[in-house]
């Protein structure tokens, strides 16, 4: 990236000039690695305190002064606008955990931070970064294999959802919605199950829409078996509720057709003028009649209508919703088993969607109205509708419910679980440090460090819960070994029981595994960087 030039001075000694050297900073070797580790630790320290059921939230203020209050690792990191390159890598890390799994975004960053912290100590002892990376790799493989061993299968069916509820509960435990824990967990589970395809073990998230409106309180949130759209009927005098709706879903505007190619229409005489006028009126009539003829009694259109079209629709008793966004339109189409019709000519009775009830809801004292489409032909589309005292709570509740949805989905895909509360980490840590002793190379040290880093998650959990971290960890660790019970973890909820199975604190196996793999991968990458050349200020980047 920076172009260096090789020159010699008057005595023939070679040296390298970097272009605009004064403006660029360059660090290399161990210094570079250490500086990176420091940056990563700083990031990990920020999110550390949000881990676990007693974790706290962060306020993030955007460049425009907008406020986000959140507990979600991925959201914190993505909104805090870091500039440091390595810190950016960590942001990416939590984002990929979010994309892949949807939960455990804080845990993965804490783990990566701890791994790097341990690596720093090893570097001080003179171990080469690559050897550390190799050791971590081996340890990670061991840990992941061990996770498989200690995993349990939780059975569930559409009717027996107790286990799913428990998992969703664990995920929501650390969020603000824990206020109405049961309500939100059951909403998440029901939403996932109603769209899930249990045979294919697949959950289509497109069918679950999460929507919110300020006002009321979190308890008034509800799961709507249908679609909610933030629009109202196009004409104030259209009926506010429609039974047995047949819905025409249109992506063509209610206006005279126009060719895509650029064109001009010249009016040169009075006859033409009159003809054009007639054509226009006929066209409107025709469009509305086509819709009417197809048997529809509700029109959802992606575009706006002309006043004239609007009135014609009213006259023909065709309630209509205009300016429905693309994704919503698709959702309506899926929910009502309708087809999206791009041209009036293609409207046909079989392409209409059907729904039991379409009604308008109004909120509060302002002009807030929404349209709810319920009892749809296809019951699989659902909307989670969140109410709350203020905007920040709703945003945070949306994020939380998304996390919970992801966790439940993961279980539907793969119903193996490990125990939370740091239990899985402690078990893996024990396994890795046991295995480390039998390794004859330097990697042994790296593996021990890996084991120590795994302890960071339970340590943080304990610290966040107000327990004495080291004491608690030592206690749990020794009882895991003594009782050979890998289900023991940190009692973060302060319920007086360490058995995570009894407390129903469970995480999907794939989520934990992904955390281990992603964190190790990132650490390996950071350790391998030994030279950074940064463009200086004002370098045009």
């Amino acid at each position, binding site marked *: 990236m920076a172009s260096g030039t090789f020159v010699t001075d008057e005595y023939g000694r070679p040296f390298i000039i970097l272009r605009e050297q004064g403006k660029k900073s360059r660090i290399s070797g161990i*210094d570079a690695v250490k*500086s990176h580790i*420091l*940056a990563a630790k*700083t*990031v990990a320290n*920020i999110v550390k*305190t949000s881990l676990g*059921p007693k974790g*706290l*939230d*962060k*306020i*993030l*203020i955007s460049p*425009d002064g907008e*406020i986000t*209050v959140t507990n979600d690792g991925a959201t*914190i990191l993505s909104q*805090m*606008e*870091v*500039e*440091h390159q*390595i810190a950016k890598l960590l942001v990416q890390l939590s984002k990929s955990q979010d994309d892949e799994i949807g939960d455990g975004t804080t845990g993965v960053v804490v783990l990566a931070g701890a791994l790097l912290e341990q690596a720093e100590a090893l570097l001080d002892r003179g171990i080469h970064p690559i050897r550390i990376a190799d050791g971590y790799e081996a340890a990670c493989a061991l840990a992941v294999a061990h996770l498989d061993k200690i995993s349990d299968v939780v059975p569930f069916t559409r009717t027996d959802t107790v286990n799913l509820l428990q998992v969703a509960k664990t995920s929501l435990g650390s969020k*603000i919605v824990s*206020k109405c824990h049961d309500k939100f967990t059951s909403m998440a589970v029901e939403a996932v199950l109603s769209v899930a395809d249990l045979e294919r073990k697949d959950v289509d998230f497109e069918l679950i829409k999460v929507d919110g409106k300020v*006002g009321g*309180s*979190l308890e008034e949130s509800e799961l709507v078996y249908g679609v909610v759209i933030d629009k109202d009927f196009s004409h*104030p005098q259209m009926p506010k509720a429609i039974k047995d709706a047949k819905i025409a879903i249109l992506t063509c505007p209610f*206006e*005279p057709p126009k060719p895509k190619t650029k*064109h*001009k*229409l*010249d*009016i*040169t005489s*009075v006859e033409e*003028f*009159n003809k*054009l*006028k007639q*054509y*226009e009126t006929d066209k*409107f009539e025709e469009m509305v009649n086509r819709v009417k003829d197809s048997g529809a009694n509700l029109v959802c259109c992606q575009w706006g209508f002309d*006043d*004239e079209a609007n*009135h*014609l629709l009213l006259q023909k008793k065709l309630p209509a919703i205009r300016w429905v966004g693309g994704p919503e339109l698709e959702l309506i189409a899926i929910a009502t088993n309708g087809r999206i019709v791009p041209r009036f000519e293609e409207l046909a009775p079989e392409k209409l969607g059907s729904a039991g009830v379409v009604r308008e809801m109004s*909120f*509060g*004292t*302002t*002009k807030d109205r929404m349209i709810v489409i319920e009892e749809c032909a296809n019951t699989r589309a659902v909307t989670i509708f969140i109410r709350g*005292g*203020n905007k*920040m709570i709703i945003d945070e509740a949306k994020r939380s419910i998304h996390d919970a949805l992801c966790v439940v989905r993961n279980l539907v895909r793969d119903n193996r679980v490990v125990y939370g509360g740091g239990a899985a980490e402690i078990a893996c840590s024990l396994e890795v440090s046991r295995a480390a002793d039998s390794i004859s190379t330097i990697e042994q040290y790296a593996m021990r460090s890996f084991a120590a880093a795994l302890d960071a998650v339970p340590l943080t959990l304990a610290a966040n819960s*107000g327990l004495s971290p080291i004491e608690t960890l030592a206690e749990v660790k020794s009882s895991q070994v003594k009782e050979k019970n890998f289900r023991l973890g940190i009692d973060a909820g302060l319920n007086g029981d360490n058995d995570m199975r009894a407390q129903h604190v469970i995480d999907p196996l794939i989520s934990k595994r992904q955390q281990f793999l992603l964190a190790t991968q990132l650490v390996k990458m950071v350790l391998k960087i030994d030279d950074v050349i940064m463009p200086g200020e004002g370098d045009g980047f």
Partner: protein
Amino acid sequence: MSLAPVQIFQDQATEERAENARLSSFVGAIAVGDLVKTTLGPKGMDKILQSSNGDIVVTNDGATILKSIALDNPAAKVLVNISKVQDDEVGDGTTSVCVLASELLKEAEKLVNAKIHPQTIIEGYRLATEAARKALEGSAVDNKSNPDQFRRDLVNIANTTLSSKVLSADKEHFSELAVSAVLRLRGSTNLEHIQIIKKAGGRLSDSYLDEGFILDKRIGVNQPKRMEKAKILIANTPMDTDKIKIFGARVKVDATGKLAELERAERDKMKAKVDKIRGHGINCFVNRQLIYNWPEQLFADAGVMAIEHADFEGVERLALVTGGEIASTFDHPDLVKLGHCDLIEEIMIGEDKLIKFSGCAAGEACTIVLRGATSQMLDEAERSLHDALSVLTQTVKETRTVLGGGCSETLMAKAVDELAAITPGKQAMAVEAFARALRMIPTILADNGGYDSSDLVSRLRAAHYEGKSAFGLDMYNGTISDMRALGVTESFKLKKQVLLSAAEAAELVLRVDDIIRAAPRRREAM
């Protein structure tokens, strides 16, 4: 290099952590609470808000005050937001919700300083909120089945709401006004159907509710000024030149003569349109859009009253009042529902001419005419009336009522105190703190009235423990007395929303232990 602290954020981005973050959010929230505190209650004071361009607003409404001040503190913004939501949702109680949230945080600050974990406080607050809500629900009275009693309730609620506003001098007048207006809506919560017209001049008590509907517009020139048994067509259609809507159409002629012909065709088209409109057999035509001189003249010739440029709400309200539909096409006169009213006339309020529609077919909308000495006064009166109307419409939906004057708060505080006594563990301290925060509301009410708050509130508490659970502060005599007898009633929904929103906001702020402020977006110099 490696030892220097690593800057991971952009320049100018700041981070406050743990105690600092908590301190800054507490300070911000408490400051907001203190700011609006003095406006609470019937003896609360107003604030003058001066905007940067010199406009002055005098108000007592919490939401209006908070909306107008620019705040930088995140916790303060949370409080502003809850007061805004309270305004949207219930319409009143915007000050109470802020004060309660900030009192909750004040109490929480003490607990945090006593080394209690924020999560423990939150747990305690949650328990307390639940207990308070149950107590509130228990004390709520529902008079839905008895229309007379219910109407009295509504009047009382309006009285309570208005007593803290500028209208308090004429509150009986205004509460009657508001209640009649709301009852006309028949359960609809759409406040747009109540039109408020402000005209400077006269006294506040000259304000009145008009049975009919008043439109702040003029009747076209040369047209009848008075119309009995009017048949009204309400329309939303262009009456200037009827544009051709086909994309890309334009006129291209090669001679002036042809241009003239075309112009004539256009005129004919308009005339045809006017004829079609007249074909509905109407004698009044109201359009949302402009009516040009030519069609206006045509209407005048035909003796039809034409009113142009009635804004959207005006048209919608008119449609509701007269029972007509808003039309845009005129080819099927038989299908269009016309509006009817007995009399349309031009009236004078102050110096302005307005159009009044009286004796309408459907009476679901109405007009309140506000009179007052200054425009600030009128604005504040409108806000107050709007608050009262909002609360009333919400009460028509959720008919339960509770008692005001600090009675409900004391009642809830008592229930929460009882809960604290039986709660084991550290949460109990938070529960107690919650009760203290609730009791701060009557304390502030008394303070604002200039009474001895410690004496009054302790007497009030004692009265509640004696079982006189309807007792509250009598703000006019400086004593405690039975609120039900005094008729100080508030909407249950309002009180519930205040409690829940404040608790939610306090929780939200309490959970924070880190504030990260991104570098402000650089703006180009203007």
